[in-house]
């Protein structure tokens, strides 16, 4: 019996972790779907624009790319 309980606990924990990783529930209605799509596209555009302008976003871990673009432009014909 204790072995079975341990196994159930382990599986429950794994399932919870997987659910957390997947984020909020599935968009079922049309409005939810459009809302999800708009939200994710808007987040992408905001983070991408910030990266091009040299601003670090809290949603994205890497450094902005503006410096590497500027570096490429500076070394042209040097």
């Amino acid at each position: 019996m204790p072995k079975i309980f341990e196994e159930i606990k382990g599986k429950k924990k794994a399932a919870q972790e997987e659910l957390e990783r997947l984020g909020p529930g599935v968009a079922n209605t049309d409005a939810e779907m459009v809302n999800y799509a708009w939200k994710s596209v808007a987040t992408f555009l905001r983070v991408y624009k910030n990266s091009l302008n040299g601003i670090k976003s809290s949603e994205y871990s890497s450094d902005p790319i503006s410096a590497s673009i500027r570096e490429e432009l500076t070394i042209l014909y040097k």
Partner: protein
Amino acid sequence: MINFPGDSTIPGFPSIDAFLSLLNPLLKRLQNPAYEVNNKIHEILETEAMDVINDVMCTKYPEFNSRFKDLIRKILDKYRRNLESYLNSLLDSELFYLFTNDINYLVGDFHKVADSTRDKAPKNPLVHELRKRIDAYYKLVVRNLRDLIPKQIFNFLIISCMKELEFEAFQFTSDVNKLKEWLNEVTYYLFSLHK
């Protein structure tokens, strides 16, 4: 100089054909770095866009994410090709038409434009004169392109491209029937089960 003697009626003046034949190979060398920087910046933008999508978008809708990535790639590539064609015509204009409004060049004060020829001893005055003119003109072209190409790259690949990207991205989300098809978790779970 031997191949392009110039106008025999005005002895002592360097021939324009000699000037062109020596200058054109130098100007042709400016083409590849411009195309390379265009490709390099396009690559940086595309890699960053894909990384941002992977980082900020939910992984349980692989179909939606993959369609969005394709859209971004298509727009970035369109602007890369537009810029390439613009750079092509810009570099051709430098190659096929010689013109400058630089006052130092126009009054014949080449030393202010091309410092590198100052120390070379003038064994043949005609050759020295031609070298000064070529160096001065080449430096003017490089100086102008070093300013103009980065501005155009920024304008095409970043400002104009971002405007279209924003418009197309929101158009992408406007069709509910397509969203129903793309925002489907089943594909993700099938993929996870087969892993």
